[in-house]
């Protein structure tokens, strides 16, 4: 039963990683002068859009999202609305945190917000897909005994990898090397992206190697 889930997870992650790859390659073919450093914001939005679209589609198809009790259209609409609201709030939250970390307040607000959007689409969106718009469940998942399923564990790993990646990405900024990727927020978004991709690879692998020790209350 577990092997099946791990395989599903691995293929999902492969699809998401492929979408990140395509989101980097396709605009390069279409838009003249496209580059990850030069037109960073374009790359950033194309990647977050791709990840958002693909994750929503894949998770919807897999049916990971917790089953809802009601199936009325109104309830589904309100759920959708709440998800969008949480998405936006999470962008604001990440923006605030990044500013508190020392990002310029006014000068490059657009860049900072774009980074927040990227982080949201890499982390919060996944929470939304796996757990639904339920903040309490999100907080619960990030505890030692909080994971209820393989997907929860996977969520823990990818989110942690992404956040740590973005955090580590801030380190090269003060260095005086004058490289194009040291410009705010290139290193952070690259760090987040690399962390995310690492998480995509690491999560199935880790779960695979620890499948003997993993016990979940449900499922």
């Amino acid at each position, binding site marked *: 039963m577990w092997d099946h889930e791990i395989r599903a997870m691995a293929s999902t992650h492969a699809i998401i990683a492929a979408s990140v790859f395509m989101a980097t390659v396709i605009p390069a073919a279409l838009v003249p002068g496209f580059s990850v450093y030069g037109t960073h914001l374009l790359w950033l939005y194309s990647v977050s859009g791709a990840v958002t679209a693909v994750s929503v589609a894949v998770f919807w198809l897999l049916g990971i999202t917790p089953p809802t009790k009601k199936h009325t259209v109104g309830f589904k609409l309100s759920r959708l609305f709440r998800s969008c609201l949480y998405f936006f709030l999470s962008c604001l939250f990440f923006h605030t945190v990044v500013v508190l970390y020392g990002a310029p307040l006014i000068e490059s607000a657009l860049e900072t917000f774009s980074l927040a959007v990227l982080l949201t689409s890499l982390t919060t969106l996944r929470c939304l897909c796996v757990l639904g718009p339920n903040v309490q469940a999100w907080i619960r998942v990030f505890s030692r005994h909080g994971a209820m399923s393989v997907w929860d564990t996977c969520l823990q790993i990818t989110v942690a990898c992404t956040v740590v990646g973005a*955090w580590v990405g801030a380190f090269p900024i003060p260095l*005086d090397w004058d490289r194009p990727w040291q410009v705010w927020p290139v290193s952070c978004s690259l760090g987040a992206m690399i962390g995310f991709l690492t998480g995509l690879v690491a999560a199935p692998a880790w779960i695979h190697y620890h499948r003997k020790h993993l016990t979940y209350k449900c499922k």
Partner: protein
Amino acid sequence: MKGLPVLSLLLWMCAVYFVGIYLFVGGFLLVRLEVNRTSTCGDVLQPGEEPVDFCRVQPRFRRAVLLIIDALKIDFAWFDPNNTAPRPYENKLPVLEETVSSRPSHSRLYPFRADPPTTTMQRIKGFTTGSLPTFVDVGNNFASSAILEDNLIHQFGQVGKRVVFMGDDTWENLFPKKFHRSLPFPSFNVKDLHTVDNGILQHLYTTMVGDDWDVLVAHFLGVDHCGHRFGPDHPAMADKLTQMDGVIRSVIDRLHNDTLLVVMGDHGMTDTGDHGGESQKETDAAIFLYSPSPLFPGPPSQSEPDVVPQTDLVPTLALLLGVPIPYSSVGQVLLPLFPPHGQTEGAVGRLSQLEALWINAKQVNRFLETYSGMAKDIPPESLSQLKRQFSRLSSEYLSSVRAGRSPSPQLAASLQAYLTSVRDTCRATWARFNPLKMVVGLAILAFACLTCFVLSELSPALIRENAPGLTAPLVVALAAGACAAACQLLARGYVEVAWCLAAAALSSELLFLWRARRRGGTAAAVVPTDKNGSKAPKRAAWLTPCRLLIPPLLVPLLRCASLLSDSYVIAEGRAVTFLVFSLALYIPVHLNWDGLLLPPIHDPLKAAGFLPPAAPSPSTVRRESGVLLACLGLLVGSLYLSLSFHACREEQGSCQPSPFLSPLSRLQDSQLKNLHYVLSVFSLGLWTYLLRRCLRHYGNLNSSGGTAFAAHWVLPLLSVCLALHWAVSATPDDSFRNLAELIGLAQLALPRAAFCLVALGLSLIWLDPLTVFVKTRGRAGRGRASPLPPPSYRASTGISPQAELHHLIPQIYQRMRRSMDDGGGELSGAGEVDSSPAVKAYGLGTVYSAPLLLFCGLLGIGLLLLHPEGMALSFLLLLLEMGALLHIHASSTNLSSLHGTYSGGFNVPWTPVVLWSLAATQFFHATGHLPTFPSIQWGAAFVGFPDGHTGTLLPASLVTLNTFASHILFAAGCPLLLFWPLVCEVRGSRGARACGEEGEDAVMEMRLRENPQQFSSALLQLSTRYLFLLGAQVFASVCAAAILRRHLMVWKVFAPKLMFEASGFLVSSVSLLIGVSLVLRVDVAVGRWFKRLVPDASR
């Protein structure tokens, strides 16, 4: 409570650190005293002839052009015609070789050897003063780098020569207002290869053609910058050198007959283009001498020197241009430039070799006599030998001159030998790193950090064993020190204290570590074993990697690693804030990971056994989490706001220093001034109010002792004093003319009164630290067997009874009474027991933290007095951040203990200690300080002493207090971390574990008295952890200075950072010791108080 072992261990630890720092700094920072005397024309008298004014005689050259090409390595200057495939830096200056071979009596090219440190500023000092400048030239004031020693530029000015300067703006800082005309260009941007050079070239030729100069100095920076940017082996270097070739050609074409041309480099460069160290690649520059009139007696002969030391330029130039040799020069004249004896026409302008040597030797001897009178760093035996040598030579020369016969040619050689040996002696004293001392210092520091870490982990075992195990290390240390002294006496005849200290420190550390290693096994077995006994690791489990690589220790590791990079040192303020923020965010995340942040979900599926027996009520958990998150918000807010108080380093290009850094009196806009003043006074008031509020809240203000007096009267009075002082010092001088005298008096009296108040308050706290108010009341008798009465409370602190319920400690009394009943009852008799007074003690629960808090508060205001007014806001943020950190620590401890997972006794975990130490660095920056010498706030020395000082001790200590204000506050307040979880303790958290049925009571800090052993061990652990973190930072900056000895930024970034880090450690450790001893003092006082309260009979 065992005070003595704790204090002695801490003292020993600090001493070991100090020895390590002392040794390293002694080997790394070369120190030299500056002699502030100048030579005059009258000094240079010809012996045996009638007095001639040296400066009035026509000199050999009227004018000189000094072309300084920064980092002109000797390899760049050689020309090898056989080299068919030259590297980019080879064969690019053919003009030198062409001139030397075509006009041998007009020109020479020599290697020009610099003395370390081979950095531009020290080198400019070197070849203008003729001395061996070190990194720290004592006597030089750090604030401005102007050269105070006698130098060539000064001497040129004395005799009326017009010096025109163009190029590197370092000169302008070194010789302010000394030039007839100057065109400085910014030297800082290493990436800019052309600004300085092109700027010079725009003016050089026109100036040379004109006639309003006597000495022209042009300092080109392009070659050096090209080296730093691309390295020597790069096409850009070829372009730059070719350009210089053209410059030299053009200058030679424009020279007059009475002009001397000197082309030279100030130092060389390594293969990577850096410099600063003492390798031959860095020290060997080139010097090229040329004049249109014959300069040398003939083509190069056998007696030509192979290498010209850089110091030799000064006496040579001085005598050629007819000025006295600068007072502290230790160079010797370049003999080939002077005609041999007998070939001169006798005029002073044409000094013969011997005459030049004699003038030179006399000047050097005079300097040596003056210097040895001031400083003792030249070894005495070599000094006396030099003196004997000079007096012999002197009498020989004088007698031969008086007799009118020409001196023997050997005399010139021995004069030369004398000058050389003086220079070598000085060089051995000043201009050499001492690698052995550096390595030993590093080793001592490394072992000290390790020892400190081990000590912090072993502190429970050490305290339990009742002997800190310090006797043996101390005895060994004494023995080793004596041994080292004896060995030195036998081998060298004199004793250098540094080596004795080193031997003592190292041996005691090693012995301690060895014993700790042995003890590790036994200690681990005695570690407070839990009920389940799971916590009994086999052996020295505290050194396994997975226990060391936890985030709270990863953060200090990152911090230490960041000290090795100049970019991070430059951006230190922001980097540290980043780290503090990260670690603060880690706390709730970690708590949530452990499932402690939220009330446990009562899951029916979960077995009941998993839950701790006394499940915490969700509301309590929620409240604690709320407090934690609110304090986190406060912390984050003050972190963010503190960023706006930073000053700017010159390396940070687009940086605006905080507007709060300038004193109010400098603000022009009166409205802005008022606003700033109101803000500052508001912050000061809030600081005072918060402190008093806190003390009142915990019932510490009811007593009538010294501490309460300080809180009641000294604290508010001090704030008023400070506010008035700010108002007075902000008034413009011309606004109240008739009150000028009064204002002057107030400027003197107010700060002094504030100093006195601070001293009064601190000594009151020290003398009478108890803040306990005892209320005695007769009560109806009760039988001994009757259950204890429900405690009764009386509101006297002005807050709700609910709060008092938490903070007044009648239970102490009850426990005491019961002990009296049990122990002394039989002795004293039933009647007495019944009529024994009911005692209530207010403020007993915070008896330890209250004096410490007040101590820090008073000290903080005192330190604020030394800062610009605007820093009051930053100090308020500091207080808020301190409070937030304490509350976060307390809440997270409470949350853990509420869930029954806390098992550390009173021990403070790493996270809050790390945060505390990082916050100290953060506020070092947020109070407008930087680890650079120009940023020291010298104004602090004049607070209360507007007319200056007579001594140096008082201003130095005032400036130190100003610079390390945040280090002092955080280190002195460090023990608060131990007390705060107890102050904020939640009922039923620790109680259930600690004292059975009485567990429902909040006993607060009295728990410490109940477990004196745990108290001592926790205090020791906390302070050693703090010391370890401080020491690790010092160790990291020491490593940075040692490893990056020849980094471009070593004297600009790393060495100042090392000095600041080392002095910060010194100040912090002393403050930490003060804080700890205050705690011990309180403990003694509490012990006495209990003794007084409990009648003797009961003992």
